[in-house]
């Protein structure tokens, strides 16, 4: 009985281990979707009322979900350092310090956006936002596909590994 329980625990643990990368991809996907919504909100606000950047960031921190909410609050607080750091630097530091499941490609795309926002005319900023949103959407598509293709395989691999260990132990 004890042996059977141990075997079940081992297999369950191995399966969970195998599913971990898939869960990480799911978190990345969710974050990319939140970022996509946040950029769409920025685009709408800029297009219709062109509020100043502190107001835009305040809206994001109020109306967005994790991790954008935390990031927007960090950048909003960081605006006190304007004059010492550029807005692009404050924006990038916010991305680097806010905990969130973002991977280097989307981090880089978002950091590039920070170099364009707040510096140019509305049309140029809208164009930068659109390009970044497209880039995030492409990355989300790739992530979704990767998760679909590899998610089950990782689970099976974890389970097989667990089974192999179990056989060895038995």
């Amino acid at each position: 009985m004890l042996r059977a329980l141990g075997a079940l625990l081992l297999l369950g643990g191995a399966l969970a281990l195998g599913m971990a990368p898939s869960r990480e991809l799911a978190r990345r996907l969710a974050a990319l979707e939140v970022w996509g919504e946040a950029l769409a909100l920025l685009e709408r606000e800029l297009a219709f009322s062109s509020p100043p950047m502190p107001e835009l960031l305040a809206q994001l921190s109020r109306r967005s979900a994790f991790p954008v909410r935390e990031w927007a609050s960090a950048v909003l607080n960081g605006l006190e350092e304007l004059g010492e750091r550029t807005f692009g630097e404050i924006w990038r530091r916010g991305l680097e310090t806010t905990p969130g499941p973002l991977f280097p490609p989307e981090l880089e795309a978002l950091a590039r956006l920070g170099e364009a926002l707040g510096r140019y005319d509305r049309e140029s900023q809208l164009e930068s936002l659109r390009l970044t949103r497209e880039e995030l959407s492409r990355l989300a598509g790739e992530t979704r596909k990767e998760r679909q293709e590899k998610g089950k395989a990782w689970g099976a691999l974890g389970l097989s590994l667990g089974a192999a260990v179990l056989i060895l132990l038995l």
Partner: protein
Amino acid sequence: MCTFEEVIAFLPPALRLRARELPKPLWDRVEEFRLRAGRLPTVSLEGDELHLPGEGAVTRRELELTVELVTQASAHTALEAARRGYLPLKGGHRLGLCGSVWTEEGQVRNLRSLSSLNLRVAHAVPGCGAPVLRALGANGELPNTLVLAPPGGGKTTLLRDLVRLISDGLVLRPLRVGLCDERGEVAALWEGEPQFDVGGRTDILEGCPKAQALLMLLRAMTPQVLACDELTDPADLAALTHCANCGSRLLATVHAGSVEELAVRPLYRELLDRRLFSRAVVIRRGADRAFRVEALPC
């Protein structure tokens, strides 16, 4: 906070520290901070430029930091003003911009690669218009008046104080004033509130071309006096003529050192020919500005 401290708050910290090292007696006399990439930062004092204390030339990064600081990283909201060449700042101060201009279809689209900035300190001199207004209104009525001075001669400062005195009735009986502040320099509205005292009976229309603003004010606010800064366009003259025919008193400024200089410029020649204005106030530049009131042919 004194005006000097208020203005240097628009500079990046390193330049702010250097500005604070200027001898305190000079603080109230600083007219501009000039920042040019690769050159030492300077301040303008009564026509001269002095280097700021400390070492090191202004960097392009400092120029960019300054613009980001004053716009709060919101160039898109300030760009319409930047297309006119400067950004209006809280307190009535302004930041002039120079660099590479990006145009599209003949319109200024953006300013990239900043090369120099001019942080201009707004000075209100309450009371400077009192002797002028006393001379103008010797018979108890305000005549249509032109204020003349070369650029930087103090026209806007005098106009602002004249508007305040007329509006509050501090020299003559109080009159309702409509102020066309096309460039936002006279009243310097900030979130709907004038940053300079322009009197309690003054209605301000900012950012609107003068010719349109004069007629809008005339229709909407029924001013007894219409005031505007820097007449430069034939359309302004047509609008002023219309307003004068409707019974409003006129108060305006022009770039000219004297009435004689006014008469040789085609636009201003026409202004004189229309006989809209009966008095000219000529400002003479110097350490202490002097005013002279002259009669114009009418």
